[in-house]
């Protein structure tokens, strides 16, 4: 409690150094990496394998974006005080967020057109993904990166003869119309949820990076001022 109170007071009185200071620890970086990894594992192991909801082309790109954030977080966590690791980590994480956000927006658009009678304005998905930098991820790890579903349709498709536990059956029925944050009322599809997630992380990253840079400049100026003040006395 005291710890939180202190953090809040520091943030209010000295926002820039406080936010800059947070990044010197591993916690936030590992939190970001862990959360991103969790999202991919949730999508792959729970929804794709356990509930038979196949990933689409945009969906595997979104996994790629989360992996970029995992790598970014781990890179900084190796040594949070090392500027090289930190810059590299920022590049990976911000890149992942921006790409993830763009793919989510695209998927959301496809989702809406796919569920309407007007087919115009989007391109359906391909089963031949093209990853950035020509990475053949779908050949390296097909189970994770090969799209097997259709964009906009993430309904569970249970193979004939599959024996489901009662829990599985309940969830398959629950997600009958596809993945939604709250399926009964079709509230927030998967693309909207990931878009918000990427957007929030991106915002936090930008604020943190700005605080780190501003704090660096301020420290340098202060160091220069002390040098000038000290100069005549020498």
């Amino acid at each position, binding site marked *: 409690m005291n710890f939180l109170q202190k953090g809040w007071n520091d943030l209010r009185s000295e926002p820039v150094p406080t936010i800059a200071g947070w990044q010197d620890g591993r916690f936030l970086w590992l939190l970001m990496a862990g959360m991103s990894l969790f999202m991919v594992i949730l999508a792959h192991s729970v929804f794709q394998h356990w509930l038979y909801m196949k990933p689409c082309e945009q969906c595997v790109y979104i996994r790629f974006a989360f992996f970029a954030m995992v790598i970014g977080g781990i890179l900084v966590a190796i040594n949070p005080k090392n500027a090289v690791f930190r810059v590299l980590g920022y590049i990976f994480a911000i890149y992942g967020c921006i790409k993830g956000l763009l793919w989510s927006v695209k998927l959301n658009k496809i989702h809406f057109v*796919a569920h309407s009678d007007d087919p115009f304005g989007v*391109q359906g998905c391909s089963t031949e993904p093209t990853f950035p930098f020509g990475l053949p991820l779908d050949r390296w790890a097909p189970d994770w990166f090969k799209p097997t579903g259709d964009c906009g349709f993430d309904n569970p498709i249970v193979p004939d003869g599959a024996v489901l536990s009662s829990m599985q059956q309940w969830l398959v029925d629950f997600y009958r119309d596809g993945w939604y944050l709250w399926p009964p009322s079709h509230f927030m599809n998967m693309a909207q949820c990931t878009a918000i997630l990427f957007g929030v992380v991106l915002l936090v990253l930008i604020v943190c990076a700005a605080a780190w840079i501003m704090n660096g400049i301020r420290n340098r100026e202060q160091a220069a001022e002390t040098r000038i003040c000290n100069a005549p006395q020498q």
Partner: protein
Amino acid sequence: MKRKLLQALTTAIALVAVFAGSGFAFSEGTDYQLLEKPIPNAENTLIKVFSYDCPFCYKYDKAVTPKVVPQLPADVTFRPFHLKTKGKYGELGTKLFAVLLAKDQANGLSDKELYSDKSLLKKAKMAYYQAYHDKKERWDAGEEAYLKTGLDAVGMSKAEFEEGLKDPKAQALIAEWDASYDVAKIQGIPGFVVNGKYLIITKSIKSVDGMLQLVNELLKK
């Protein structure tokens, strides 16, 4: 300072107006792209690459292509190409569709009538679309089950299908449709190709009329 900004703004608006008003509305890269590997023997054609396992192909075949195809110029041929690499039964579907298209042609149906109710190709195709997309049928029982869906829709026996597969015309269609893959991998499907070399960028299609205009423009190029 304010005046400069205003000046820049008016110039920008004027430029946009000039470009928006310049008659020819279609451009390479936005509306269509040139195929690196053109499809041979495709002068004066509109080719549609599709698959039964493709939600937007179904959407286009419900709402767009049936309106576009009959309005194509008389000397232009419409040719559907089924993509064999997509879907668990892509190859089998390709064989059946080729047999049915050859039968349609033998029955004297013109390419513009491939969306009429007389077309066997259309009947089988719609049966697969509905089974796959509306009923979420995946034919886990195997090839027999998949084939049955299409054969039942057109009232054909398996023996007739196997007989039809020996028809050189059906075999020629299957061979010709191999060109589908190189088209499909560019932007996915449905893929529309004019004269075997101009691939329409599907997401730029905004209406049936717009698509017809673009096709007609590309046919003249």
